[in-house]
C-alpha cells in the first residue's frame, strides 16, 4: 500500500516554479504543432496523422541545412555568423515543410475529399508510415544525428537564473560558517594526495586526512543542498527563451492572419461551413492549400527550434511522440479552435512536467492520453470548443 501522506510530503515544492516553467517551454512547441492539427481539422474535418511526420522532416531539413552551412559532424571551430545561420535554418524548414504539406494535401487528401472520412484517415496513416519508413531509406538515421550545439552562439547557451526567494538566512549562515573549515580540509587532502603513492593504499596519516575531509564535505554539501531546496529559483536556457518568443511571435502573426485579413475571413468561413463557403464564392481549394501552408510551416518552425536548441538526436520516428501529444493538445483545447490549441499545448506541456516532478516519469507519455480520454468523456468539445447536438 502506498502511504499517501508520505507521497505528498515527498514532493519537492520548491522545484514547482521550475517545473511549471519547463512545462510552458515544452508546451510552446506542442502548441505550434497543435495549431497545424487544429487548422486542418477545422477546415477539412480530417485528422492529419501525417502532421507529425511533416514535423520530423522539418527537423531533418534544419539538420541538413546546418550541415550545408558548415556545422557538419566533422566541422570544428567557432561559427562565423550564428544568428544568420539560425535564421536560414528556420526559414528553410518552414518553406520546405509548407511545400511538403501542400503536396500531401494535393495528392493524398484532395482526391478523397468527397469520400467517407475514414478513407482520408487511412490515407493519412499511409502517408505517415510512408514518410517514416521511406525517409529512413534516404535520410541519415544511424547513429541518430543531432544538430551541433555550436549552431547556437555561446550567449544563447548561458542559462538565465531568476531567484524567486532567497534561501533561509540561518542556512546561509551555516554555510558561511562551514566553508572555511571545508576549504581547509580540502586543501590539506589535495596536498596529501600528491604525496600518496596510490589512492587505494593510503598511509594511516592520509587515511585520517581523507576521512576528515569527507566528513566536512558531507556537512557542507548537505547544507548547500538544504539551501537549494529552501530557495526558489528558475533556471532557463537562453535558447529556450528565444524558442518561446519566436513561437509567440509566430502565433501572433497567425492570429492577425486569421482574424484581420481577407484570407483569414475566408478560412473561417470554410471552417464554419464548407459547402456554403464554396457557394459564396470562396475558392475552397486555395483556402485548404493556405491552411496546409500555414500549419506545416508552423510545424517546421517548431521542429527546427526543438532540434537546434534542445539538440535532440533525430530519427525518422522523431515526430511520433510530439505529434501525438500535440494532437491531444488540439483536442484538449477544442479541435478546430485556434486559441484552444495554444492553451491545450501549454496545458499539455505543464501536465507532462508535473508528472515528472511527481516522480512518475515513466508514465510521462501516458498522461497525455489519460487527459485526452478524461476530456473527451466529460467535455467532448474540448475546453474552449463547443459540443454540437446532433439533430435529425
Amino acid at each position, binding site marked *: 500500500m502506498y502511504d499517501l501522506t508520505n507521497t505528498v510530503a515527498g514532493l519537492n515544492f520548491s522545484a514547482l516554479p521550475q517545473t511549471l516553467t519547463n512545462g510552458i517551454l515544452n508546451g510552446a512547441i506542442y502548441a505550434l504543432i497543435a495549431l497545424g492539427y487544429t487548422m486542418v481539422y477545422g477546415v477539412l474535418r480530417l485528422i492529419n496523422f501525417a502532421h507529425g511526420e511533416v514535423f520530423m522532416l522539418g527537423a531533418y531539413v534544419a539538420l541538413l541545412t546546418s550541415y550545408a552551412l558548415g556545422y557538419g559532424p566533422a566541422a570544428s571551430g567557432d561559427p562565423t555568423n550564428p544568428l544568420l545561420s539560425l535564421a536560414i535554418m528556420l526559414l528553410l524548414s518552414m518553406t520546405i515543410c509548407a511545400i511538403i504539406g501542400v503536396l500531401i494535401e494535393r495528392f493524398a487528401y484532395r482526391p478523397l475529399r468527397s469520400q467517407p472520412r475514414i478513407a482520408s484517415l487511412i490515407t493519412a496513416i499511409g502517408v505517415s508510415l510512408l514518410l517514416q519508413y521511406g525517409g529512413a531509406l534516404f535520410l541519415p538515421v544511424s547513429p541518430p544525428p543531432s544538430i551541433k550545439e555550436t549552431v547556437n552562439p555561446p550567449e544563447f547557451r548561458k542559462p538565465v537564473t531568476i531567484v524567486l526567494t532567497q534561501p533561509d538566512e540561518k542556512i546561509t549562515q551555516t554555510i558561511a560558517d562551514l566553508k572555511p573549515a571545508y576549504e581547509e580540509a580540502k586543501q590539506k587532502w589535495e596536498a596529501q594526495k600528491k604525496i600518496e603513492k596510490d589512492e587505494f593504499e593510503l598511509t594511516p596519516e592520509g587515511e585520517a586526512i581523507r576521512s576528515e575531509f569527507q566528513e566536512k564535505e558531507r556537512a557542507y554539501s548537505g547544507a548547500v543542498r538544504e539551501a537549494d531546496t529552501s530557495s526558489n529559483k528558475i533556471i532557463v536556457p537562453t535558447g529556450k527563451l528565444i524558442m518561446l518568443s519566436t513561437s509567440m511571435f509566430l502565433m501572433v502573426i497567425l492570429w492577425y492572419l486569421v482574424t484581420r485579413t481577407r484570407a483569414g475571413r475566408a478560412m473561417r468561413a470554410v471552417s464554419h461551413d464548407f459547402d456554403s463557403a464554396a457557394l459564396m464564392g470562396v475558392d475552397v481549394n486555395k483556402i485548404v492549400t493556405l491552411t496546409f501552408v500555414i500549419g506545416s510551416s508552423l510545424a517546421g518552425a517548431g521542429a527546427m527550434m526543438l532540434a537546434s536548441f534542445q539538440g535532440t538526436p533525430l530519427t525518422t520516428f522523431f515526430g511520433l511522440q510530439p505529434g501525438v501529444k500535440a494532437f491531444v493538445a488540439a483536442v484538449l483545447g477544442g479541435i478546430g479552435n485556434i486559441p484552444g490549441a495554444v492553451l491545450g499545448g501549454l496545458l499539455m506541456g505543464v501536465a507532462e512536467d508535473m508528472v515528472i516532478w511527481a516522480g512518475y516519469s515513466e508514465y510521462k507519455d501516458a498522461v497525455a492520453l489519460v487527459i485526452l480520454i478524461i476530456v473527451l468523456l466529460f467535455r467532448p468539445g474540448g475546453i474552449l470548443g463547443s459540443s454540437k447536438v*446532433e439533430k435529425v
Partner: protein
Amino acid sequence: MFFLKRFGSIAIGLLVCLAIDAIAGGMDDFSRRLIILAGLYVTLSVSLNLINGITGQFSMGHAAFYQVGAYASGYFAVTFYGKIPWLTGPMWIIAMMGVSAIAAAIAGLIVGLPSLRLKGDYLGIVTLGFGEIIRIIVQNQEVIGGSYGMNVQPKFPVLFGGTGTSGVWMVWVLAFICIAVCRNLLKTVHGLPFLAVREDEVASSAMGVNVTKMKVIAFLIGSSFAGAAGALLAHYEGFLTPTMFTMDVSFIILTMVVLGGTGSITGSALAAAVLFYLPEKLRDLPPVPVAYIAGGIVSVLLMVSVMKRISITYHGPKGKGALLYFGTFFGAAALSFVLGLILSAVPSIAQMEAIEANRLRMVIFAGTLIILMLLRPQGVLGHHEFSWTWVRRVLGIKNRPSKAVSA
C-alpha cells in the same frame, strides 16, 4: 438439408485446418511462422471488422486487446501451468484462450463504455489512446516483466510434442470460428441491429434497437476474439514484450479491415492474409538498385492517375473496363522496368548503393495503402461478400434458372 449443409461446412472447415497443419508441418520454421501469424491476423482483422465495419464504431486500438489477451495468458501460464494435471496440450491452449478472451472482453467493456458517448473520429482517438495507455502501463509493471519482456512457458511446439502436429491448426480453427461467428451473426436476425447501428444510430434507436447494448456487444465479441489470438501468440512466441503491440500493429489491423472492405468479412480475412504475406515475402528479394525504385515510383504515379481517369470517364462495357485497368497495370510495370534500365545508365545514379528489399517492406505497405485508398476508397470488396455466385458471374457462367413457382 439445412443441418447437413451446416455440419458439412464445419467438417470442411476442420479438414482445411488439418490440411493447413499437415502442409505447414513439412515446411521450414520461417514459413510455418508466417502461416501462424497470418492466421492470427485473419482473426484480428475479422474481429475488428465486427466493431468497425459491421457496427460502425471506429475503433483504432485493437492491438490493446491483443496485448491484454497475450499478457493474461502469459501470466496464467507462468503461475499455473503444470499445477492442474489434466490440462495439457491442446486443452491447455483452449483454456488459455478462454482466460484471455475473458480478460480482453473486460478490457473491451471498459473501452466500449466511452463509445456510448463518443462517435466517429473521437471514438477512434480514445481507443487509440487506450491502446497506448495499456502498453505504457504494461511497460512499467515489474510483475509481468516490464519493458524487458515476459518469458512464457510452455511454448507452443512443446505443448504439441514438437513434431507431428505443429499446432498450426489451433490458430486456423480460431480464425474459422471467428469468421463463422461473424458470418452467422450477420445471416441471422441477431445481426441486423448491428447493421442498423452502422447505418443510422438515431433512426435505429427510434425503431427500437438498443443502440448502447449493440455497441457494447460488438466491442465484447471483437475484443474477446483478439484476446484469444493474443493467447495463441503468447504461447507460440514464448516471449512477450510491450513493443510487439505498438500503435503500428493497430494501424496494420485497421488497414486490413479497410482495404478488404469495411463490413465485408471475407474481404477483411483475405486482406489480412495478403497484406501480411506480401511484405514478409519481400524479405527474400535481392537488394534493389535506386534506379529501379525511382522508375517504380514514376510509373506508379502514372498508373494511379491513369486509373483514376479511367474510372471517372469510362462508361463502356464491364469487361473492356477491366482490360483497360489490367493494361494500365502491366504497362506501368513494363514502364518501371524500362525507366529503371534507362536510369541505371546514368552514372551518378548507378553508383548509388542498392537498397535492401527488407527496408522497403513498410514503404511498399504504406504505398499500397495510399494507392488502394485513392483508387478504391470503399475497399477492395466494399460491402460485398465473396460468394460462388459472384465467381460465376465474373467467369461468365450463367446461374441455373430457379425452379418456376407453381401458382
